[in-house]
Structures are given as C-alpha cells and as structure tokens.
C-alpha cells in the first residue's frame, strides 16, 4: 500500500511473510484433471509439461545414441545398415538440439522459475505461453511423421545439395523444425516482456538473479536468430517442393549460401543452448557457497556480450568450405573474442567459492562437473577457432567431442544441476541424496570415457558421420561405446530415484538449501499464484550478509487477489521504483 510518492521512491508498508511449511493448497492440488492441465495458463504447469516432453525426447535421443555407439563397436557393419545409421545420427542430432537442448532450460526450468524469481503470478502473456507449448507439440508431431514416412538422413545441418536430392521425408522434418522455431520465439518474447514489466516492487535491474539475466540474453538471441532459421528452412522446402533454385547448384543455386544461412542461426543457437546453463551455475554456486556471487555485473554483462558477439562468428563452421582468406581471418578473430567473456565467467564462479561455506550437495556436484567439462569444451573451441589447426580438425571426431563437451558436459550438467536444485520447489519432495551423488559420479566417469577418446581419434584423422572406419580406430571407438553404456546407467539411476522421490519422497521444506533467492521464499510447491502477497525486494538475491527476514517481505495487506491474511507488525521500507 503506497503511502506517499516522490519522483522515483515509493514508500511501502511491508511485513514479513514466512513461507508456509506444509501448504494444503498448491499449484499441484488446484485445477487438477487432464483437461485442466491441457488448458492451463499457469507457467508452472506449462513448465512441467515442457519438462516431461523434453525428458521424453532426451530419452529417445539417448537411446538412438546408444544404437549408434553399439554399431560402432566394429569397423564394418555390426547390426544396422549404413542408411539406417545415417538416419539415426540425423535424428539423434536433430532431436537433441531442437527438441531437447534448446527448450531444456528456458522453456522447462525457466518457465517454472522465472515468474517465481520476479515475484509475479505468471509470465506476461500466459496464453501465449500455452500456445508456445502446443506449437512445440505440433513441431514434434511433424518430426515424428517424418521419421515414420521415409526418415531423414541429411544430418541435423540439412546441408544442400544433399538435402535437396536425397530421398526420405526431408520436407516434413524441416517443416517440423520450422514450426518449432515459433515456439522458441514466443517463449523469448514472453520472457523479455515479463522481465521488463513484472518485477516486484523494489526489484531493480541489479537485484534480479543472474539466471534471469541469462534468460534475458538467451531470449534476445532466440528472437533475433530463430527467424533466420525459419527463412532458411522455408527456402529449402520451397526448393525441394517447387524446384526454385536457391541452394542447389543443379538449379543455379549456391550451396555455400545455405551454410551461411544455417550457421547464422545455429552458431547463436549454440549460445541459446548454453547461456541459460550459465545462469543455473551462478544460482547454484552462490547458494551452495552461501556467499555473494563474485562479479555480478561481469557475469551478467558477459552473457549479453556473448549474445551479441555470438552473432558474428558463424563463419568458423565454414573454414574449409572455400570461403575467402579474409572472411576466414575475420571469423577466426571474432571467434576468439567470444572466448573471453566465457573465460571471465569461469573465473568469477571459482572466485565465488573463495571463503564460502561450501556444501557439496548434488546440484553443486553437477556444477563442479560442469566447470571442469565446460572448460575442456571451451579450450577445444579455441583449438578449433585457430585456422591452421581447424583445417586439420574440421569435420572429424575432434569437433564431435568438442561440442559434446560443451553441450552435454556443459548444458546437460547445468540442466541436471538445475533439475536437482529446483526439484524440491517443483514437487515439494526431496530425492535420495546418496543415490543422486552416485549417479552424478557415474555420469561424470561415463561421459569422459565416451568423449575423451574422440578427441584422440579426431586428431588422428577419423572423420565424423562415418558408418565404417579403419581398424586403427577400433580401440578408441570401443572405449567410447563402453563409456556411453556407463552414461546410460547413470541416467537410469537418476530416473529411478526421481520416480521414487515423486511417489515416496520426503516432504521438502520451502527453502531446503538456505538460499536467499526469491523463488525459495514461497512454499514448496508454490501455491497457484506463487505468492500469497506482493513480494517486496530490498536486497539482491545473493546478499548472504543480510538476515533471511529481509528476503521475505511483502506489501502489508496485499493478498495477491485471494485469501484472508492476518495482521502482524509492519515496517516501512523505501523501494526504488
């Protein structure tokens, strides 16, 4: 309740609202039933629907990967044909990138957490949010149809002229990815508007979490880059369907133009796939070190810097495509520039741990794994950005290992960290800490066993997307395959204890990690409208030197549109508008 108003300072009557311990009414107990879920505009439920969907696709993509690895146990054909192999690696890549990794953190975890971290009831456009989910589903249906009506064997990159001439149902697949793009754009728009418009009273730009900054940077990339992918895929479809010459040299088109278009989206897209992960790392490191994040602005602004410079480096995927030397030089130079903000983040995260009170719980364990693996991904990125060396390494297993270290070692670890971190908030249940740590270690070992040998193979000259290979590489391929089995076991353990947690898990307290971040200041799971009051923010989310009571303030007398409230002592705070 505003008492007086000056130019940009507002006086508010606030009091402490302690989060309820065992909430009777939560978003999970309200509006239940299939129909209510399918038509829900609640960001938390939509987030969970996304979560279920991406986990489904992760499972499918992972199973395909195990098939690929099993085939590669022997140099010649083991149990599937070359054409099947080619279709499987295409699907594995496309599913993992477009259906799992891109929506993983923003659409699933982000949807759930973003309004909670802003203290609002929902995203700015709740119906658009639901729409974006259904667009995702429609895109997925198109892709499934493509798989069952001929399959696609072009690789996730759909390079022309191969994709214009090969059989199978390339059109259906590209249409699927085209449609999917809109889901990504809508999520981006929604997040940007929400962060701009729906911050709590007092929550200035320097008091929003680094997770929000990372989602903000990601949303910018999604909005600016995804339309280019859409246009490219549309042109590709037009070429295939109407024989208009754009990329196919047989029709007078230029195949290298396609690569430019594709990477103009897809390089920024690799940042769509990692920047949200950076946000999770910041949250978890600070919470489990119980310490103020080191270099808030350095981390926040480096995400934006990455988002912008990331648009200017696409040509580093085309160093051997016959580009001019000048273009190659410029792209190589800019590629190194993106490395810098990335490095800055790492240093800031490690510095945050200095003099902290570090609790090696599962989420933190994943983040340690993230830091180690992502560094390897980054350093090998520098290797690939260096022209003379990339000429040798391009399109070999070295590249395959590089991007798995960043996408799986980086983003998937961050995702798992985030999943374990927010799990109690999402479901109000704890998971088995012992098994969770075991799974993390198993995954870490399996991951390295799978992908370290690929660096060696790649350096030795083993090209990627090979169904057969020379015998000299067999040892490395076998190690890699056994590693992938260990990896698979790790994920099965996760599935088992998370299921157990859902059914039998101990009840989670509102703030099991003792975090100062805002989403922990409401009950677990939150009520339908997130908070029973209008939260007021006077501290940043990492201010561990301030008492917990200062993080649970809300406007006195506010009840967020429903319910009664009881009176306690109140105080007055000044909040920046």
């Amino acid at each position: 309740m505003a008492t007086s108003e000056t130019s940009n300072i507002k006086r508010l009557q606030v009091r402490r609202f302690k989060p309820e311990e065992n909430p009777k009414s939560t978003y999970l107990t309200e509006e239940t039933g299939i129909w209510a879920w399918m038509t829900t505009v609640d960001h938390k439920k939509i987030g969970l629907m996304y979560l279920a969907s991406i986990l489904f696709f992760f499972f499918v993509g992972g199973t395909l990967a195990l098939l690929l690895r099993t085939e590669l146990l022997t140099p010649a054909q083991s149990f599937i044909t070359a054409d099947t192999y080619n279709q499987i690696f295409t699907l594995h890549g496309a599913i993992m990138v477009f259906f799992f990794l891109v929506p993983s953190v923003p659409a699933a975890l982000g949807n759930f957490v973003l309004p909670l971290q802003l203290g609002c009831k929902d995203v700015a456009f709740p119906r658009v949010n639901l729409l974006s989910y259904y667009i995702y589903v429609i895109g997925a249906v198109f892709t499934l149809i493509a798989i069952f009506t001929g399959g696609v064997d072009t690789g996730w990159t759909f390079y022309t002229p191969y994709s214009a001439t090969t059989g199978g149902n390339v059109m259906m697949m590209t249409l699927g990815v085209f449609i999917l793009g809109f889901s990504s754009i809508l999520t981006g728009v929604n997040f940007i508007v929400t962060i701009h418009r729906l911050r709590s009273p007092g929550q200035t730009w320097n008091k929003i979490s680094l997770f929000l900054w990372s989602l903000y940077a990601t949303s910018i990339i999604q909005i600016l880059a995804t339309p280019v992918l859409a246009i490219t895929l549309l042109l590709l479809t037009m070429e295939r369907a109407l024989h208009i010459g754009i990329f196919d040299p047989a029709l007078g088109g230029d195949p290298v133009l396609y690569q430019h278009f594709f990477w103009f989206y897809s390089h920024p897209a690799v940042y769509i796939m990692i920047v949200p992960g950076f946000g999770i790392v910041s949250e978890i490191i600070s919470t489990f070190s119980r310490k103020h994040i080191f270099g808030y602005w350095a981390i926040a602004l480096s995400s934006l810097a990455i988002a912008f410079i990331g648009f200017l480096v696409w040509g580093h995927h085309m160093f051997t495509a016959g580009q001019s030397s000048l273009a190659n030089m410029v792209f190589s130079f800019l590629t190194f520039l993106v490395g810098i903000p990335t490095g800055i983040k790492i240093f800031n995260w490690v510095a945050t741990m200095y003099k902290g009170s570090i609790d090696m719980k599962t989420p933190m364990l994943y983040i340690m794994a993230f830091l180690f693996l992502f560094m390897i991904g980054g350093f090998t990125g520098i290797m690939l950005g260096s022209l003379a060396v990339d000429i040798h390494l391009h399109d070999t297993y070295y590249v395959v290992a590089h991007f798995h270290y960043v996408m799986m070692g980086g983003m998937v670890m961050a995702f798992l960290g985030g999943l374990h971190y927010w799990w109690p908030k999402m479901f109000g249940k704890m998971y088995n800490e012992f098994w969770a740590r075991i799974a993390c270690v198993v995954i870490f070992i399996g991951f390295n066993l799978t992908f370290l040998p690929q660096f060696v193979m790649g350096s030795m000259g083993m090209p990627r997307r090979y169904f057969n290979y020379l015998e000299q590489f067999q040892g490395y391929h076998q190690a890699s395959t056994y590693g992938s089995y260990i990896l698979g076991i790790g994920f099965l353990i996760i599935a088992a204890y998370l299921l157990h947690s859902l059914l039998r898990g101990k009840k989670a307290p509102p703030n099991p990690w003792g975090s100062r971040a805002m989403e922990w200041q409401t009950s677990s799971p939150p009520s339908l409208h997130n908070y029973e009051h209008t939260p007021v923010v006077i501290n940043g989310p990492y201010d561990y030197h301030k008492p917990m009571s200062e993080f649970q303030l809300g406007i006195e007398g506010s009840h967020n549109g429903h319910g009664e409230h009881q009176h306690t002592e109140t105080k007055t705070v000044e909040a920046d508008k």
Partner: protein
Amino acid sequence: MNRLSDFMLPPANSTFAAETDALFNFINVVSLILLIGITVTMIYFAIKYRRKSEDDTTPLITHNSKLEITWSVIPLILVMIVFGWGYNGYLTKTNAPDNAYEIRAIAKSWLWEFHYQTGHVSVNELHVPANRPVKMIISSDDVLHSFYIPEFRVKMDAVPNRYTSVWFEAIEPGEAILYCAEYCGSAHSNMLADVVIHSQEDFETWLETGDAIDDDLSPVELGEQLVQRQGCLACHSTDGSTLQGPTFQGIFGRDRLLTDGSTVTVDENYIRQSIIEPNTQVAEGFAPIMPTYAGSLNDRQIDAIIEYLKTLD
C-alpha cells in the same frame, strides 16, 4: 610434450604440418596448465571452505576490478597469439607456390577421380611426387564432399559448380589415406582413396607407364583389379548382398526390371551403357546415383570389366 602430439596426431608428412602441430601443442599445453590450475583451485576451495556448520557466515566480497581486468587481459593476449599463429599457418596452407604441379580432383558419390596433366586418370588412388609442391583443383559432380589427407594436415570441401583448391608438398615417399570428410550419403564412410607418394623419378615413371602394367594381365584379372580400383565395390557387392547398387553376383545374363517398367537382359551392351551413362537405365529399387565413368575408363578396360563380371556367378 611432443609425446602428446605424437600420440594424438598422425605422422606428419608435409612441409607445413610441423607448424600446425606446433600450434596444436602450444594450445594443448596452455589449456592443460589452465585447466589443471583452475580445477585444483576449485577442489582446494571446495575442501578448505567446506561447510562446517549450518550457521557459517561468509564475508561479503562482491567484486574486484583488478582481478577482473587481469583475468580478461591475460586470456586476451593468449588468444591473440593463437589467432596470429593460426592465421599465419593458414596463409601458408592457402597460397600455393607458382611452380606447383596441378592435379584435378573430382569427387563423385562415392569415389575420387584424379586427372593428371598428362591426361592420365586414376580413381581412388592419388599419385603425387614427394618434395615438389602439388596443387589440387577440386570440384564435385553432385553433392558436397571434402578432400582430407590427415598426414598432410589439409582439408578442402569439394563444391559442385565451383573450383576449390589446396596444396601440399610431401616430404617422404610412402602411403597415406585420403578421406571424404563432408557427409555425402550412404557410402560416405567408404569414400576413401589411397595416396601414393612417389619419389620424383618414380612419379615421372608412373606418369609415363601408368596403367601399362595392366598389359600383362588377362582381361578377367584386369577387370577384377579395375572393379576394386575404380570404387565400384563401394556400392556393388560380389557376394550377393545389396548395397547402394545391385550386386555383381550372377549379374550377367539375368533379367533386370528397370524403373521405367521395362525389362532388359544384362548383356555386354547393358553393362557398357551402365558404366558410361549409368542413369539412363536404372534398376528397379535403386536410386539414380551412380557416377559416370565416361572419360575415366577406356574401351579395353570396360571390356575387361565385362569379362570379369561374367565370371561371377
């Protein structure tokens, strides 16, 4: 540290391979130092500052501009070194000396055809002299491919409707492998060629005599060799299994249903036609993907292949 590169890299057999390898080493060493340094710091913090009680308090350290600048500038310097070094090495790799011996490489799904200045053509076998710069002029007849010889540290895409080029100077006579490094479909991983590096004299002799040794062979033996050398076996098996094309086993004299619905008997003319203009008569159930051998096989060689196919039943 050279151990690392010896372990990871294939033998170096071109004049500029050493520079690439040195940079590869440099990046590996610097990365390893940083990786180990940061990881050890992380683990050290995790142990030293582990949570001792739930009431632990931590000092407020929000940022430190001096540190921030240090850890931006040092990596910046490092990557600029890597950039300059890499670009320099790249320039050496792109600018072929004027006196380079030119060879045309034509990529077709799924074989490599090489045309020499003497008019010789070899398939899936690249003959080059050592100690003399060789410039490859690369093109593709269909989709993208990529010309990759790890031992020379060179790679260049083969793009339809456009010429690209790459050069190298081999140091020692010997053998190496050429891979197709750009995904090109079903038999992408079979699209390899042998690189035969001759001493200069041997190379001249090879150019003069070329396939002359073939004169000693009977037609069937020659046919058998050609079928291997010309890359036919990438798509046609001799044991009855179906690859991208129909098997050669029992092919001669068989009735063949074509995609246009007609049926022909496989005879000399049909085989000849299939080699010279493969996509005018395509067997039912297969895609019109076979490259033409017009210009790379002469009449004597085609006759030999026909004789060889007759023996496969």
